[in-house]
């Protein structure tokens, strides 16, 4: 009797599974529609734009459909330094953000674990910059680091800085701005992983003759790898495409232009839509390749 009850289960399970998948489909529908409408459609449009050719004797910004592959080769050749700079800056900013965020996230997630109130307060402070617009914060930094600002004036008064020195417009200012603006994106995923880190593994490491540094390297870092991967991705991807920090209106100058600035000026200033679209797609492709390699290297199969 007991066995016949078991035997009937698979038959009964059939409709249940089908109904579940139907519900799942309904729940997924808004997301699918959203992606179709706001991701796939513009992406296809962008691909078409990237192959357009100028209309002979037409107005500025007038293009017709075509298959002009040279849009890609020309723009890559012309903007290669900006593309390389974008990835170089983004990489540096990501590393800096990681170095700053890891101890911060470790402190909030592990050290003050027993004090939820302190934890929430510190987390609020991490997120607090989001309460002010990204543009305003970056502008504020421009003022602080401007030639008349306290930092430059102070450094010059102490003769540490040459009298014609600037901070704004330098790679330093841009990387600083990128690091500053993306630190919360690094801290929060790191916190989420470290908060769940079982300190008994650290104790076990210490018990097995590993010094605190070795325990950190061999136990803590590998166990927090999911947070490191998501934090670096959330920082690196937007930083590589950022055009605010590197813009001459904010912390950068013509010498610090990144590929985002080239895309912006081609789209909005010179109205060279095909080049801007081609650059966007190149940027996207390169990021996809880098991220693909990175995630594979970090190895999800190594994470439990």
């Amino acid at each position, binding site marked *: 009797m007991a066995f016949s009850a078991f035997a009937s289960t698979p038959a009964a399970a059939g409709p249940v599974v089908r109904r579940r998948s139907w519900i799942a489909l309904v729940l997924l529908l808004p997301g699918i529609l959203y992606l179709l409408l706001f991701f796939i459609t513009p992406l296809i449009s962008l691909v078409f734009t990237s192959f357009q050719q100028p209309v002979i004797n037409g107005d500025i910004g007038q293009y017709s459909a075509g298959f002009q592959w040279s849009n890609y080769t020309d723009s890559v050749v012309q903007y290669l330094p900006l593309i390389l700079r974008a990835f170089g800056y983004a990489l540096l900013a990501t590393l800096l953000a990681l170095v700053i965020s890891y101890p911060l996230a470790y402190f909030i997630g592990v050290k003050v674990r027993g004090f939820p109130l302190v934890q929430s307060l510190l987390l609020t402070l991490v997120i607090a910059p989001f309460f002010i617009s990204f543009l305003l914060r970056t502008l504020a930094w421009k003022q602080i680091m401007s030639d008349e600002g306290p930092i430059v004036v102070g450094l010059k008064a102490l003769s540490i800085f040459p009298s014609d020195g600037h901070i704004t417009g330098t790679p330093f200012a841009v990387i600083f701005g990128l690091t500053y603006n993306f630190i919360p994106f690094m801290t929060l995923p790191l916190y989420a992983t470290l908060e769940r880190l*079982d300190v*008994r593994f650290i104790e*076990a*490491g210490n018990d*097995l003759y590993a*010094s605190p540094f070795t325990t950190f390297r061999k136990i803590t870092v590998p166990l927090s790898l999911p947070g490191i991967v998501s934090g670096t991705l959330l920082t690196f991807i937007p930083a590589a495409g950022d055009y605010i920090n590197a813009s001459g209106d904010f912390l950068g100058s013509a010498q610090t232009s990144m590929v985002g600035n080239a895309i912006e000026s081609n789209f909005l200033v010179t109205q060279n839509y095909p080049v801007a679209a081609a650059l966007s797609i190149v940027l996207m492709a390169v990021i996809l390749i880098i991220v693909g390699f990175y995630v594979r290297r970090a190895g999800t199969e*190594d994470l439990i």
Partner: protein
Amino acid sequence: MAAGTFAEKGADLELVGITKTFPGFTAIRSLDLFIPAGSFFALLGPSGCGKTTTLRLVAGLEEPTAGRIVIGGKDVTSTKSFQRPVNTVFQSYALFPHMSVLENVAFGLRRRGIASPLEKAHEALRLVELDHLAARRPAQLSGGQQQRVALARAVVNRPALLLLDEPLGALDLKLRRQMQLELKDIQTEVGLTFLHVTHDQEEAMTMADTIAVMNRGEIEQMGAPEELYELPRTAFVANFLGQSNLFTGEVVSSTPDALTVASAGQQLVIPSARAPRRSGTVTVGVRPEKLLLLTAPPAAPSSGVNVLGPGRVIDVSFSGVSTQYTIAVPGIGDVIVFAQNMVFGPVVHVGAEVWVSWNVEHGFGLEDSPAEAAAGVADAASAAGADGDVATSALTTVKA
């Protein structure tokens, strides 16, 4: 400890005046303890008695508020956990989830720069019969297998002192019995000093050479399992380590041989050698399995035998190998008798009028004052309730 070498043999452990206070409570009160090299020592006590804190202090995972920790003649009080010649088998096993079983076992060897760590790790895994699973992740193993990996990971380092923090707690009864025997075998084989923390009194008695019973941050009594069981010094020990019938009464006569105590009009005799308190109000006891159940009053009061009764059987619990009878004796309270099932099933039923008797030499006296004894009984009862490890669990209750 010199890098790259194993400890030759176990080392002794000495705790001198160890006190550990946490904000709001004292976990350990001025504890002195000496564990000789090569012994299997069990710290037994209910949860919250300070036994795990003691273990963590020895491992270096906590710092004592006061006192010294000496391992193999060397004061290690101020050294860090990773510098001590000590390994722990954690209650949660704490196997590194991102490493294979083999790498887990080789971890300590690699840290100390010991030659051919993988070979030695395989050897340790063979010892716990898990070498065929060396490539697996800990998450792919069963609880018992994880426990054995944790043991291999600690034993492979040949620590002078191996700490076991209730490592068998998560296993089911059958596997636990099997692991107890294996642990004991390994200890004999490798000759290390084992410090085993447990709340399971049967586990402590089967495995350990010496047991220290802890309660409220202090050691109540220490000794060989038989000694502790047959001659408990406090009410807590008498009831935490097995069960006891305790009677409180006034000493009416004391000779070098025997002490006579009057409890609710009944005279009880115990050997003077087994009674630390010999005047005033004392608590005496006897183990339930030492009692004989009589259905008729003994013909003539013979010397060398204590008799209580008449009383009435109020509960009969059949548990296979023995039967537990609870007998209400007027003025004395409930007396528990464990009787072997020599015949089929219980010999008397609820409501029967019975007497109990036992040999005088089986009785013992407690060091506790009556007030302390009452507190100890309460502690042991709450510990048994909390841990669910009552000495005997009745399978069926027979009621007539």
